[in-house]
């Protein structure tokens, strides 16, 4: 990404805290070149200078991250004014937070949902897994109890059953991820075509549901790994 793009695509507006020049959310004042504080409503996409697309080039993102780090980092503002030091700290911490969120596909999707007004969805079991989940939770409890009193054979049986289930859950997780990432393309094209709000909502709802299933299965995987 070119620096020109980076410097223009900000969400905040106001005037330079140093020279008073009118700004529309640039990282640095175009007149006196001083670093500016972050406006309160800036989101990560806007901060980095990206549209809210979900497919993004991770290498390009890293490049932008490094380039902006070199502009914002507190190391380079040691002898600047208190206001500039504060602004450097704000911008570099926001940059780090943004990079951490956007470079991870799942975190990126979750973040987009929160920007679009979705609350973090409750962890829900996928309907086709409901029965199996019930069974698995029984087995987890069984294993815990067996560890306390039962014989080796009994434990081995439950362990084997859980291990099989675990492999199945991991496959399921990969499947969900695939479906989730397929929605990324949907979202990007909806965004590109500036489609109706109802169409946007359909994609977002789907992603929200997939994320809630994903979170549920991950918890289950964690619980099983723990008892094993």
């Amino acid at each position, binding site marked *: 990404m070119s620096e020109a793009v980076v410097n223009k695509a900000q969400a905040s507006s106001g005037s330079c805290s140093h020279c008073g020049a009118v700004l529309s959310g640039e990282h640095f004042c175009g007149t006196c070149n001083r670093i500016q504080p972050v406006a309160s409503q800036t989101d990560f996409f806007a901060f980095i200078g990206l549209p809210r697309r979900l497919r993004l080039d991770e290498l390009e993102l890293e490049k932008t991250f490094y380039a902006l780090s070199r502009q914002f980092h507190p190391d380079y503002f*040691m002898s600047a004014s208190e206001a500039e030091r504060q602004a450097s700290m704000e911008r570099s911490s926001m940059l780090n937070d943004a990079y951490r969120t956007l470079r991870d596909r799942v975190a990126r999707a979750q973040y987009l949902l929160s920007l679009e007004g979705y609350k973090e969805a409750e962890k829900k079991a996928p309907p086709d897994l409901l029965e199996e989940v019930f069974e698995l939770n029984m087995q987890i409890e069984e294993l815990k109890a067996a560890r306390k009193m039962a014989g080796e054979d009994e434990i081995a049986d439950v362990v084997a059953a859980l291990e099989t289930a675990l492999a199945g859950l991991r496959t399921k997780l990969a499947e969900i991820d695939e479906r989730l990432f397929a929605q990324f393309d949907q979202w990007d094209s909806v965004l590109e075509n500036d489609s109706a709000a109802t169409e946007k909502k359909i994609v977002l709802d789907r992603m929200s549901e997939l994320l809630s299933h994903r979170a549920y299965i991950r918890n289950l995987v964690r619980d099983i790994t723990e008892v094993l």
Partner: protein
Amino acid sequence: MPVIELSMSGLPQSGRVVGIDLGTTNSLVAFMGDDGPEAIRDESGNALVPSIVYYDDNEDRLLVGEEARDRLITEPRKAIYSVKRFMGKGSADIQEDLSLVPFQIAPDSEQVIGFQMGDRVFTPPEISAFILRDLRRRASKFFGEEVTQAVITVPAYFNDAQRQATKDAGHLAGLEVLRIVNEPTAASLAYGIDNRDEAIVAVYDLGGGTFDISILKLKDGIFEVLATNGDTHLGGDDIDNRLISLVLGELEQQGYSGGASDPAMFQGIRKSVIKTKHDLSECDTTQISIDGVEYERELARAEFESLIADLVERTLGPCKQALKDADLDPAQIDEVVMVGGSTRIPFVRKRVKELFKREPHIELNPDEVVALGAAIQADVLAGGRRDLLLLDVTPLSLGIETMGGVVAKIINRNSTIPASASEMFTTWVDNQTGIDVHVLQGEREMVADCRSLAKFTLKGIPPQPAGLPRIEVKFLIDANGILTVSARDHRTGQEHSIEVKPSYGLTDEQIEKMLLDSFEFAEEDLRKRQLVEARNEAETVMRAAEKALAEHATRLISEQERDGISRALDELRQAFGGEDYVLVREKIKALDDASHHLAEIIMDGAVLAALKDRKASEVAEG
């Protein structure tokens, strides 16, 4: 907090920023020279200052480094070593350590340890400050300018309290600490490894008391830490303790008892086994013998390795965890760098090589490489260069206490710093005006298993129905890895005052008081040094005057002048016996003035005599 200027040397203030490695065993200071980073050495070429502080309350005498080490055996109760292990800790944390060191802990050490030394109590930041002050003096002397700014390194796995304690120590030593840098990261700067476009580097740092592993990505001059892990309680000290236990056990079998409770004997054994450990990095077998005790034993490297195998094994868990966190296989690591004195041990190198399947780098002196890296970072901060940038991470997750004693993570470990998180708080009952917030650090789920960082109360909330107030609290981990907290009332936009009480560590008031204390102490030190110097000079002057009076006075000057000199001499003698260096200086000058004329005459005579001699010898040669 302003740094109180201890301008004792009268030197001009320097704009230089030095890099300091404040180690468990040794400390050193380095700077950026024209040809790269350099350690500052003493007259005998030593860069390392042993991290040992000796204090005698009767004489009010303070010694640091070699001189303090010399007294470990003769006066073991008066010297503190390995103080780094106690930084940012409370008494409940250190029971295990205490069984291995002869230190007396003062009462009231729950939140900050106090070492009882005679009638005075010193906290770990104060002890560290004495070491830092020594390094600062060394640097100031070297440059002929007062050094006041520094970068200080800490183990990457240090928590907030330990970092803050280190910063406090710098402050107490009259240093403005521009940055706390992680040791493995600093080492990677010194190694550079910038001869290729991109590399993944693992830094394995096993020092005197702590272990760190950091995995970095180096690309275009950016040193990005991907993951870090470690154990702030694992290092050379633990290896020494294994050997000490071995010797103590065998002595007991021989019928000696009480070796552990006799601090002088304990230090004798400690000194001896440290030498054994060093020897075994060079030879296959060596002798252990203890001064003043009938004990001798051969120790082979193989036996030594089996004694410490589990300690070395304990470093591999964090290595694997860091790899996992960075989402890398050992095979994806391009370079492995060894840092810290304990990596001289062949067995350590062997195990590291096996894990990463790669020959580790040992080119740079493992004792000095961290300070050299700190000097490079100091140069960056001083504005010397912009081609390098360190992007470090926080080693531990930050969380807040929620219902049922569960910790909700708000900043995950290995997040690049500065990092921030905002949380919205509200009230539980109508008209509640304060909300308690408890901040913790650690990876576990329950409050009881994490490290308490601070507790604070959001105060002055206007009385409203429960759940209505919206207070946004912003947690920011700065580039030092240290937490700051601010809060804002979303309805009124008003900033809230937050009084953060550190759970472990010194409050600002305590530091202010210590600053004054150490200021007085510095004055006291200075006064003593001045007195010693004045006395030395007085001795020289008195001896010369006595000699002149005895040999020449009757021949060369009047009786009146002779009496004047004798009187001045007596007065100086009297001042010499006192404690007032200003008076000694005055009397030196008075004696100088009184004997000035006599000195001139003698000088003239000496010149004449010399000329006469030369003529004679020239004649003889001719």
